[in-house]
């Protein structure tokens, strides 16, 4: 049954997600075109008006960045609204009368929502690399263009450490958990007899504050806050890396615990407490 739910969730969302993804691909291409044009002007016309050129190029780049971020926010809003409408409005009468368990219904939403969010994050990353590569094209001597990709890798993997896989794992997990937290807050909002959306927003605000406090405490225990503040003064590079690694592991554990709590909370509240009006 989970497979069928996932299939129909994809079928219901792919059109909107395709449009949003194509916009992100378009932004990446425009980044490249914009910087390639800039590179050509810089290298071929040394007497260009640098002020005017910089202004127009950075205006376009700024607009593209805002467009990419807007698409990312739109994806989140779309997934949140779909979750809410599909489960807790009239559409919920169909969803919750299917011969599927609440766990399966929510799992399908989380799996498909996570895949779309991760795809969006991946495309955003590609856009970022396009911008970085384009910028490299513009500022690098044409004879050294071949070195741009390796320079970019050096920038991103700043210390060449073994932490990169861990950081990527946390990044992916935090993306999924962020979606789970929205779903959880929407579910908690349903416990209100009236003003359910307000309930969801208040829950999100309360949760965000609580999480900030928990994260701060966790970083204190892992020594990272202290390390970050005084790292330059008291810690060697090796000690700083070690402290950072501990903090990342703490983050990973916290993320997993939160993810499980959000998911179980959403399922249990929906199963035991939610009443569709």
């Amino acid at each position, binding site marked *: 049954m989970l497979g*069928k739910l996932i299939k129909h969730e994809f079928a*219901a969302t792919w059109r909107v997600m395709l449009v949003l993804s194509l916009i992100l691909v378009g932004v990446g291409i425009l980044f490249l075109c914009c910087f390639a044009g800039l590179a050509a002007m810089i290298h071929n016309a040394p007497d260009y008006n640098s002020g005017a050129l910089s202004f127009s190029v950075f205006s376009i780049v700024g607009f593209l960045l805002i467009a990419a971020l807007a698409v990312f926010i739109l994806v989140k809003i779309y997934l949140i609204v779909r979750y809410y409408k599909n489960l807790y409005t009239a559409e*919920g*009468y169909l969803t*919750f*009368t*299917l011969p*599927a368990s609440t766990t399966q219904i929510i799992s399908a939403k989380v799996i498909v929502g996570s895949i779309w969010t991760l795809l969006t994050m991946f495309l955003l990353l590609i856009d970022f690399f396009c911008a970085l590569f384009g910028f490299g094209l513009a500022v690098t001597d044409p004879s050294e263009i071949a070195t741009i990709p390796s320079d970019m890798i050096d920038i991103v993997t700043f210390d060449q450490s073994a932490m990169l896989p861990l950081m990527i794992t946390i990044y992916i997990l935090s993306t999924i958990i962020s979606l789970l937290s929205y779903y959880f807050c929407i579910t908690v909002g349903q416990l209100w007899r009236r003003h359910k959306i307000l309930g969801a927003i208040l829950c999100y605000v309360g949760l965000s504050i609580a999480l900030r406090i928990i994260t701060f405490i966790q970083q204190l225990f892992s020594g990272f806050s202290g390390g970050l503040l005084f790292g330059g003064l008291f810690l060697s590079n090796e000690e700083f890396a070690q402290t950072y690694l501990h903090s990342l592991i703490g983050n990973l554990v916290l993320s997993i615990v939160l993810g499980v709590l959000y998911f179980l909370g959403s399922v249990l509240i929906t199963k035991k407490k*939610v009443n*569709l009006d």
Partner: protein
Amino acid sequence: MDYYDTRPLSPVVLNCRNLTKTYDSVMPALDRIDLTLTRGHIVGLLGPNGSGKTTLLKLIAGLLTPTSGEITVSGFPVSTDSKRVISYLPDQTYLSPSMRIDEALHYFEDFYTDFDAARAYDMLMRLSIDPTKQMKTLSKGTKEKVQLILVMSRRADLYLLDEPIAGVDPAARDFILHTIVNNFDPRATVLISTHLITDVEPILDEAIFLSQGHVLLHQPVAAIRENEGKTIDQFFREVYHYAW
């Protein structure tokens, strides 16, 4: 054929015991309801607005959690098993506005093994409804017809129809009632909630009168007519005149 096609059928299709549902108000929407329905009947769930009809149907469909009491459908407590044998029509549109009719049919076919797509397409064709149309482009009456076609194209044990003829024109009412009767399977039971008694009276076998969360009466329609010497509509008006 799966388990749901081959399982032995008990004569009792719905059993509610001591069923209570209280929202946050003091007065329960349903108060210690006992109700048993057997197979092969079309049953009218009758009562004025706020009497608890929709709450009862939602509890049976698993959309509400009872405050106390038990419900079994074909012997199953409310669960994925009971949802497999219930076909529920709510009192509002539950299909996504962006969904096309043929997509909705495919959806039902995928999730319900008892869904007869050929029967659904046949009914759509007879009503000249284009299956490629999106739900949001349909009139209210056509939306209701499409949802009823979906619900009645299943081979369920228990059909729960919440106000299926409210808010549609008389011609659409006739079609809806005709569809219910024509698709009626004697192994199943249809529970219709309505306050438009005159329209549904001709197709009812039994009537349940609900008032303020209590069952006032549950009898065969023929017995009410014989004992009271009145139509169900006349008797309903008499009962609720005194009850309210």
